[in-house]
């Protein structure tokens, strides 16, 4: 399903297709006309995507067809070997993890996995993990430290799951532990927000030396819908909340919450999956290369300083 603001783009694409079909059917030369329309299409895409409102970016970040963690694990990492289970309660499908090769390096990779269709979405619990998922992630961080392998995390979750079992099993506790576990990593860590960075459930995977974000991904303290329900007492005010929360990639770059924005192909990641995966791969490779010469102590210190200095305040009047 196209996003509402994509309709003119889709219409134009359909028109070009129609014209192509007509040209070949009738054996007439419409090359110039088609080229002109193609040009107009590119311009339209660029104009649309350069001027998305924050709420529209939220919709792109959640769009069906956007590459999921698994698309990166399979597309960007050679020989990705998935590892399962938290060794205590089970295996949470909302978090996928394992080892693979990225360029010259072996890396440990952990990703939050939404479904690529309804069936998988139900299996993956829409990317909302239970405590078990965070425990699995922490196992991976142990593995990374032990074998001196860099950590790559891919963030894409509406949030940690708000359910009875999740609470009983200590959802808050494991998020706090996972944050602490990441601050203690002695290897390079790079996080990429690939879709939705939903609150504490996202941060639990995001305490890295470098935090990257895709151009149309979001990262927020609360979903616009929940924020609207609390502050405006109406979830329908989500659009206003999205504006107020400053949750887009470039907002977050300005706030110092992320270090780098990875531009998406024109038209959004959901329209150019392979190219997006390639861009993320290149960016992560660059960041890992820049971190590779640092000592374990220096890596830990840089990561701690990075997060210790987050926030804005002034001397009291």
């Amino acid at each position: 399903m196209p996003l509402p603001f994509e309709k003119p783009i889709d219409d134009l694409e359909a028109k070009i297709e129609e014209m192509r079909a007509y040209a070949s059917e009738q054996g007439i030369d419409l090359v110039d006309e088609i080229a002109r329309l193609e040009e107009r299409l590119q311009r339209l895409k660029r104009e649309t995507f350069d001027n998305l409102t924050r709420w529209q970016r939220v919709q792109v970040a959640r769009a069906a067809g956007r590459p999921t963690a698994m698309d990166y694990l399979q597309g960007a990492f050679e020989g990705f070997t998935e590892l399962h289970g938290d060794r205590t309660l089970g295996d949470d499908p909302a978090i996928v993890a394992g080892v693979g090769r990225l360029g010259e390096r072996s890396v440990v990779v952990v990703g939050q996995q939404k479904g690529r269709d309804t069936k998988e979405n139900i299996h993956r619990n829409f990317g909302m993990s239970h405590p078990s998922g965070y425990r699995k992630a922490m196992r991976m961080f142990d593995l990374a430290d032990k074998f001196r392998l860099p950590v790559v995390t891919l963030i894409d979750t509406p949030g940690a799951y708000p359910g009875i079992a999740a609470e009983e099993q200590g959802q808050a506790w494991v998020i706090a532990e996972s944050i602490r576990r990441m601050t203690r990593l002695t290897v390079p860590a790079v996080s990429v927000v690939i879709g939705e960075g939903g609150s504490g459930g996202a941060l639990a995977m995001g305490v890295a030396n470098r935090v990257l974000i895709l151009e149309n991904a979001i990262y927020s303290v609360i979903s616009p819908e929940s924020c609207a329900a609390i502050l405006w007492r109406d979830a329908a005010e989500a659009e206003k909340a999205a504006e107020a929360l400053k949750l887009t990639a470039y907002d977050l770059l300005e706030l110092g919450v992320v270090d780098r924005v990875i531009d998406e192909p024109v038209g959004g990641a959901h329209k150019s999956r392979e190219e997006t995966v390639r861009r993320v791969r290149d960016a992560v490779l660059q960041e890992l290369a820049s971190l590779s010469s640092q000592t374990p102590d220096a890596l830990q210190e840089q990561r701690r300083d990075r997060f210790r200095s987050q926030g804005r305040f002034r001397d009291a009047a």
Partner: protein
Amino acid sequence: MALERWFRRNRPTRKEDDNAPAGLWLKCEACNAQIYRKDLVANAYVCPECGHHYRMPVEARVELLTDAGTFEPWSGEIEAEDPLGFVDTQPYPERLEKNRQKHGRPDAVQTGAGLLDGQPIALVVMDFFFLGGSMGSVVGEEIARAAERAAAERRSLVVVTASGGARMQEGALSLMQMAKTTVALEALSARRLPYISVLTDPTTGGVTASFATLGDVIYAEPGALISFAGPRVIQQTIKQELPEGFQRSEFLLEKGMVDDVVPRKALKERVAATIRLLRAGADEPAAAKEATRAAAL
């Protein structure tokens, strides 16, 4: 200077910062007994009839958990900015200013140093009545500074939480405070200094999912709501009735998530005893080594 500010503050007209109904007499929300407000206050905001724990003002909490006259405030040097230019039904700076006026502190936390049964501690008390005790940059920074200063001065850390979670009005910067406070606690761990977390009603969201649950020992006050997601959010998600006592202290004790449920009246003694027991291991050999060195000289 800081001490002066603590006492100089004038707020005679403000309402009590607790959740007990106003008036000379009040009806206990738990047992319906008529109680004299003065008795409730004298009883550390615990209903003298049924033991129901009311939320208590920060000053009373400080008094409860430090030896008389030993508390020296640390916080209050910094105040919030409006990094997002956040406006909901009113601008964030206005909300802040109203709360500052009403509660007499720059933000939703009080930190400071004191003695707890003679032992040096740093005390952090969150103020639920200040914007729901929400954690923005200032709350995060004050807690981080308190943890680091406690470590530098070899004090144990006691944190009393009461918070709705991360503060929406500072967006992702509030979220980052979860990592910031966690990082700062490492200074205490490195020096083997105890961190006791006391969870009070309510403690939810990003506060629960960061420093609140990272205590070496975690105590909870009776009947406190302690959660990641609030009960309403869960109910909306799963569309089922929640079990009796769900997310309350006693329930969490049963699930293994807190070390004990400690009534307010016993809290000071319990925290002091716990710190004494925990510190014995790291402190005594150091003391013994110091004595040996002194003897050798």
